[in-house]
């Protein structure tokens, strides 16, 4: 049973560029959440997708956008990259059945902005 898989594992971009990160949820899960983890900090919630719609959003600018596909996989897009966007981006999947459902995390994509 495959867990949450993310690609790529590492990425290097320059300021102003655009990036797309991908996530496949754990088998049987229908909800995908994205988190940003800056170095030495705890993860910060970016947004959550369910039924191909953004259901919740954290305190992130519109440069951060996403998409969920019919097979429940998801993409995170970041436009006009800034140095401060350098971070580990984590995808988590779960069942949309209440707050008690634990989220399962992938190993993340390490994004470095030069």
């Amino acid at each position, binding site marked *: 049973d495959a867990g*949450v898989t993310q690609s790529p594992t590492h990425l290097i971009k320059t300021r102003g560029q655009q990036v797309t990160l991908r996530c496949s949820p754990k088998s049987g899960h229908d*909800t995908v*959440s994205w*988190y940003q983890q800056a170095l030495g*900090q*705890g*993860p*910060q*919630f970016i947004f*959550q997708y369910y039924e191909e719609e953004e259901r*919740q959003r*954290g305190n992130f600018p519109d440069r951060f956008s996403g998409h969920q596909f019919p097979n429940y996989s998801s993409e995170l897009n970041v436009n006009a990259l800034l140095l401060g966007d350098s971070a580990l981006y*984590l995808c*988590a999947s*779960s069942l*949309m059945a*209440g*707050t*008690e*459902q*634990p*989220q*399962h*995390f*992938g*190993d*993340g994509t*390490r994004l470095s902005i030069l």
Partner: protein
Amino acid sequence: AQSVTQLDSHVSVSEGTPVLLRCNYSSSYSPSLFWYVQHPNKGLQLLLKYTSAATLVKGINGFEAEFKKSETSFHLTKPSAHMSDAAEYFCVVSGGAGFQKLVFGTGTRLLVSP
């Protein structure tokens, strides 16, 4: 709004001695609480969860946590530390009111010496 406070940024123990990682929470709702562990350059692994059932929660790898509503605490313990326990630990509260947004503490780095 939900929040958690991890009271120690670093905890150092010797192998074979008890571990105590402290967490206080704030929640407008009956909270769902979690502990996650993160090993270097890896994603987050769920250790245990509290969802209003038994107040003493047992998790993986010998960890357990006790939910104390009167003290708004959810401390993580383990009777005997192992070298492989060295990692970053995050106390997490769920967003409440049907939302699955996770709010992370700032983390506690556990150091285990021989």
